[in-house]
């Protein structure tokens, strides 16, 4: 695997500036985290179209909705915990119910937020955003894909929740990616089982698949950046063709990618399935790599889950 790493939030800031040059209707809001979310890059380039709303996430989302109602494409950014949790009602009422063009692009998703601890680690955001009607929910896989996702977001009319990371993310799409909203990508073909992953867990899933080959297990790996609307056809196809599913996400096993895949599986084609993710618990302070190990977000966990579903398959 490539060891090249790019922070998705850096790509976000750069892509916003490109979009800002191309389209004068792009406006960007932040809630006093512009340096961290990288929207400050846009603010520097287009000060008139950048609004730092101070530490007021609820106000930021409703203001973004007001701007969007007048034809602006409003990108609103903060950390994932605040963008999804603190402003949930505002997202529901004024971005989603209204189907307005508000793009909630959050950084510091998941446990790799690290040292800041549980208060800042969003492990539930995908679940609570996914439950809102009209919302599109995307977790980009790497920096390369993030650029496509942000561009697609600007072209797509309607509310979106896009979850980025704090740390640098291993590059999966070294040769470019063909991202389409609502579509998963087969990164590696296989016949014995399918691992469906998003975000930083995609690269780990590819590594796990390599390791499992030594055990004569032929694993298919799917990159599933769009959590909603989930790529139902691809999930069913994988379940039918490989007969077992493992999901892997940097999020609670409740209601995120694992939940979305399980909903498709139980209603369409029941096969053994296991979910790798944070197991219904809060995180804590620590280095991202230490936390990934402690909270079970590793190649080892993915391999154990794979062996478990394979055993149930027989």
């Amino acid at each position, binding site marked *: 695997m490539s060891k090249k790493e790019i922070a998705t939030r850096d790509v976000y800031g750069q892509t916003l500036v490109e979009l800002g040059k191309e389209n004068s209707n792009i406006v960007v809001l932040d809630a006093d985290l512009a340096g961290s979310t990288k929207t400050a890059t846009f603010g520097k380039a287009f000060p008139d179209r950048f*609004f730092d709303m101070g530490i*007021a996430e609820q*106000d930021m989302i409703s203001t973004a909705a*007001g701007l969007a*109602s*007048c034809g602006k494409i409003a990108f609103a950014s903060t950390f994932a915990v605040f963008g999804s949790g603190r402003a949930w009602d505002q997202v529901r009422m004024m971005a989603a119910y*209204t*189907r307005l063009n508000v793009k909630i692009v959050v950084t510091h998703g998941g446990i790799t937020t690290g040292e800041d601890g549980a208060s800042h680690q969003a492990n539930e955001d995908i679940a609570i955003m996914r439950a809102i009607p009209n919302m599109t929910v995307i977790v980009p896989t790497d920096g390369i894909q993030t650029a496509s996702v942000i561009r697609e977001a600007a072209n797509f009319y309607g509310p979106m929740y896009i979850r980025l990371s704090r740390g640098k993310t291993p590059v999966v799409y070294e040769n470019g990616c063909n991202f389409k909203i609502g579509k998963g990508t087969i990164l590696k073909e296989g016949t014995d089982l399918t691992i469906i992953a998003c975000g930083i867990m995609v690269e780990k899933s590819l590594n796990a698949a390599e390791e499992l080959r030594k055990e004569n297990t032929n694993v298919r790996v799917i990159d599933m950046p769009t959590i909603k609307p989930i790529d139902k056809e691809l999930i069913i196809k994988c379940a039918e063709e490989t007969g077992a599913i493992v999901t892997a996400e940097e999020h609670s096993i409740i209601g995120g990618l694992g939940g979305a895949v399980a909903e498709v599986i139980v209603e369409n084609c029941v096969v053994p399935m296991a979910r790798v993710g944070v197991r219904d618990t809060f995180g804590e302070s620590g280095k991202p790599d230490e936390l990934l190990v402690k909270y079970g977000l590793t190649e080892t966990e993915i391999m154990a889950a794979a062996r478990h579903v394979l055993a149930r398959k027989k």
Partner: protein
Amino acid sequence: MVNKDTIFALEKRANQLRQHIIKMICAAASGHPGGSLSAADIITVLYFHQMQHDPKKPTWQDRDRFVMSKGHAAPVLYAALAEAGYFSVEYLKTLRRLGSSLQGHIDMLSLPGIEMSTGSLGQGLSAANGMALAGRLDKKDYQVYCLMGDGECQEGQIWEAAMTSSHYKLDNLTAIVDHNKHQIDGKVEDIKNLNPFGDKWKAFGWHVISCNGHKIADLISAFEKAKATKGKPTVIIADTVKGKGVAFMEERPLDFHGKAPTKDEESAALSQLCQIEVPKK
């Protein structure tokens, strides 16, 4: 000065809105009469005097924007939109019915002429700020109006938004507080006191105007002063009576915050409203 005929016509119109409110809430057998009636004169002045809007072109880009932050007062807005010609007055009867565009709380996607969906309190002023910022970016000179309840001002987001309006010096924005002094659980001052209310807004950097929210001439003059004020946003604290125009609702405002009158009460209310002789000045 606005002439007497204009004022008289607006008073009649407000009375008409009040009758619609009673009829539609009774037809629905649910809804919020008290806070709709208290806002009837404010809404009348906005929709039939102050605001630039065109029922034939509800998405006209230069129109003034109105955000009903107190979304439960939907009936008064629906009544005004129907009277203005956005849809038929007949349609008001469908309030809160399955399949009707007249949702219990305001839904911008279901009706022309609605700028923002509301119902979860405290959010409208932020959205109005967004519209005012967009107007400035687009170099348009439309005005943005936002009506809030006084109880609603207990929501923290109102004050986040109040800081935003003054920070960005949004003088194309006018907020109005329907200061009827009651909320569901009791009097605002007993539940969670807002006073000194005007001073709070002043401290947040606003130009504050207090007026009688049932006197058309006062409201018109307040809106004119607001529009003429540059460099800061204006809030009009409109002193109102919950249930205004219907004696038994004015006397028992807490009974009619979110409850429909009975059939008998409807008749009594309508006969009172029909009898109101508009006072000559």
